[in-house]
């Protein structure tokens, strides 16, 4: 196996540059570098533990026209990720050991990152009957994160049972918090903007009411709750409150909710149509503050590829979701690092360490110390690029950042010591 000797790199933003040896799949002492180690000039680069995404839609099986496990994991590698959690809302739904093992195997074959399948909570995401959570946990895919993402588990009893049941194998229930009756036909954030644009609004309370209930349930049954894509100021407050109670509640925020606001909807361009919807500036600021103080544990992309025809149409007919993997780190740099809210060590915590811990991913999210698995990303924060949808690895083109100038670029990604990206090129 090729060894890499990375020289003069800033580990997690440390002032003093140091060298990193990747040898035999692990981080090793640079003094022991073999003579044929490939040198990598790390000058000006930041080394972070390989990023871990808790929320990725790879679309396979079922919508291979939008994304496949392979294309999605290529996109992940280009974004600096070494592990992604593939959401369960595929066709067929990932609600059996068979489907999750298939996705897991496809990830192994692709080899660009660890693909960790998320299991559905209920059969067919229908909210009626628990899926065989234990079978999925015991399968080769070792599922630990369960979610009906895309659909809220709105039935309180069903949610309670799921929270209780996953305790048996240290699982976590990741809830898509969206009260269904309050969001029937909803198209965008409910705000002055939705009133002007004549669109059915999606009130913040529809998210917050479910989060409040779920936090109480998690506290009541003593289980692990993870809140997907938190998007409102009120949600951040509720999670802060739940954590203050000592309950095991974690939360994620997407890059787009850290940057984009609902005034973009005035373009009626469905590229900005997403679930949960883009919210207000006040929400964005609260989310940034929540991520900075740790109330929100991690950034998760909610990478949601859609084929062009599902976005090149009128708003109401368009699919919800946006790409995220290949722009996540840049968006986090712009919104959190360049604004002084997070340093690179904290970025490593929010994008690698904590998501790995929530997902119980054993060999990801470790500090870059000798002996640790050699999962890491080299990132050039001084670089800058204009996002072009056509150059992305994803099969889909629905990036809301197209044409935008974003800071930073991923120079290299290593998965257990093997380069998946080198010199900014997919390997």
């Amino acid at each position, binding site marked *: 196996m090729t060894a890499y000797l990375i020289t003069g790199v800033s580990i997690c933003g440390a002032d003093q540059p140091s060298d990193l040896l990747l040898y035999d799949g692990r981080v090793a002492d640079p003094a022991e570098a073999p003579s044929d180690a490939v040198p990598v000039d790390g000058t000006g680069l930041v080394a972070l533990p390989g990023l871990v995404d808790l929320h990725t839609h790879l679309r396979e099986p079922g919508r291979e026209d939008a994304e496949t496990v392979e294309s999605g994991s290529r996109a992940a590698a280009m974004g600096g990720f070494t592990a992604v959690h593939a959401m369960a809302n595929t066709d067929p739904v990932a609600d059996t050991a068979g489907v999750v093992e298939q996705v897991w195997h496809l990830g192994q074959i692709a080899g660009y990152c660890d693909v960790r399948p998320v299991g559905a909570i209920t059969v067919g995401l229908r909210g009626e009957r628990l899926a065989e959570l234990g079978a999925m946990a015991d399968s080769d895919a070792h599922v630990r994160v369960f979610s009906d993402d895309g659909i809220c588990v709105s039935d309180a009893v069903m949610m309670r049972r799921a929270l209780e049941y996953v305790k048996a194998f240290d699982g976590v229930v990741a809830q898509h918090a969206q009260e269904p009756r309050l969001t029937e036909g909803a198209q965008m954030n409910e705000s002055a903007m939705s*009133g002007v644009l004549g*669109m059915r609004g999606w009130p913040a309370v529809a998210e917050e009411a479910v989060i409040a209930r779920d936090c109480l349930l998690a506290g009541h049954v003593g289980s692990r709750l993870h809140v997907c894509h938190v998007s409102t100021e009120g949600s951040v407050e509720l999670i802060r409150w739940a954590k203050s109670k000592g309950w095991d509640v974690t939360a994620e925020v997407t890059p787009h909710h850290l940057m984009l606001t609902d005034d973009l909807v005035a373009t009626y361009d469905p590229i900005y149509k997403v679930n949960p919807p883009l919210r207000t500036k006040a929400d964005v600021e609260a989310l940034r503050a929540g991520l900075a103080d740790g109330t929100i544990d991690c950034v998760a992309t909610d990478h949601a590829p859609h084929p062009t*025809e599902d976005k090149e149409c009128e708003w109401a007919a368009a699919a919800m979701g946006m790409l995220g993997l290949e722009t996540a780190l840049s968006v986090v740099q712009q919104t959190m690092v360049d604004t002084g809210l997070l340093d690179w060590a904290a970025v490593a915590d929010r994008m690698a360490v904590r998501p790995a811990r929530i997902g119980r991913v054993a060999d990801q999210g470790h500090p870059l110390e000798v002996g640790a698995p050699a999962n890491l990303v080299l990132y050039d924060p001084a670089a800058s690029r204009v996002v072009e949808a056509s150059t992305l690895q994803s099969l889909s083109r629905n990036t809301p950042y197209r044409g935008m100038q974003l800071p930073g670029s991923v120079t290299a990604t290593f998965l257990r010591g093997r380069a998946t990206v080198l010199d900014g090129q997919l390997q």
Partner: protein
Amino acid sequence: MKHHLLSSADLARDDAVLVLDTAAELLSLADRPIKKLPTLRGRTIVNLFFEDSTRTRISFEAAAKRLSADVINFSAKGSSVSKGESLKDTALTLEAMGADAVVIRHGSSGAPHRLANSGWVRSSVVNAGDGTHEHPTQALLDAFTMRKHLGDLDAKRVTIVGDVLHSRVARSNALLLSTLGAEVTLVAPPTLLPVGVETWPVQTSYDLDTSLDKCDAVMMLRVQAERMDAAFFPSAREYSRRYGLDDRRFKRLPEHAIVMHPGPMNRGMEISADVADSARSVIVEQVSNGVAVRMAVLYLLLSGADLSRTDPTASDSTKPEVVS
């Protein structure tokens, strides 16, 4: 004037006044032996209707034909659209046919906006009603009708009553009438006022009775009985009692005030039959004014300097401009 008319917000005060003044001149056409002008000869106007609206389509069609434009009616019902053809493909077809203007009615808010700004077509796009968003030519004809009866709309009081939340007419009227200087009051049960209405340039009230004494025009919006199934109000009877314009409320209006309704009416629900048929009801007149207003809109949108389509051999001016 902008290249498109998508929202009443596209009209600055001068633009709106230009449309209304032009419409006033064009209204006299109805009295002439030949009700046709050669203005848009050789131009093609497509009526692209994804929703049934015979009234609006006929109004636009009459307007276009009186300006000598070629009119193509494209109804989504029974067409390839119902077979899954996308708005984009429909738009590209229209572009290939050489449409100069597309008049679009669509059930989805923002569809005209999408058509105009997606780069699919070069034609002017006129919003003939989109979802629960806007219906700017309806607002223009309402303003036109009010001006005829009330004069300049500056500081005139207009009360709009009913299902503001779902009404594209109310949105377009609130914007346009405010632009023209009128004082607009929206009256509705709290469930039927949009979130954020406090940021609109209007007053709001939950009480119809207190809003009638001083108003110059009252516009009743259509209320669909189905709304009560979604719990917007308890029953048609209660709605009618609290927000209907009945004879008792009609008598409270000032002598000069006019009664309007964009149609189609639910007689007995938001408006009583006697009020609808009273001398101060201008509801029928609204319809006839619609043609003149839409002629004005089409003329003003299509006769602008469109250099991309200029035929260089036709560069002689009828009346040479003088530059001093």
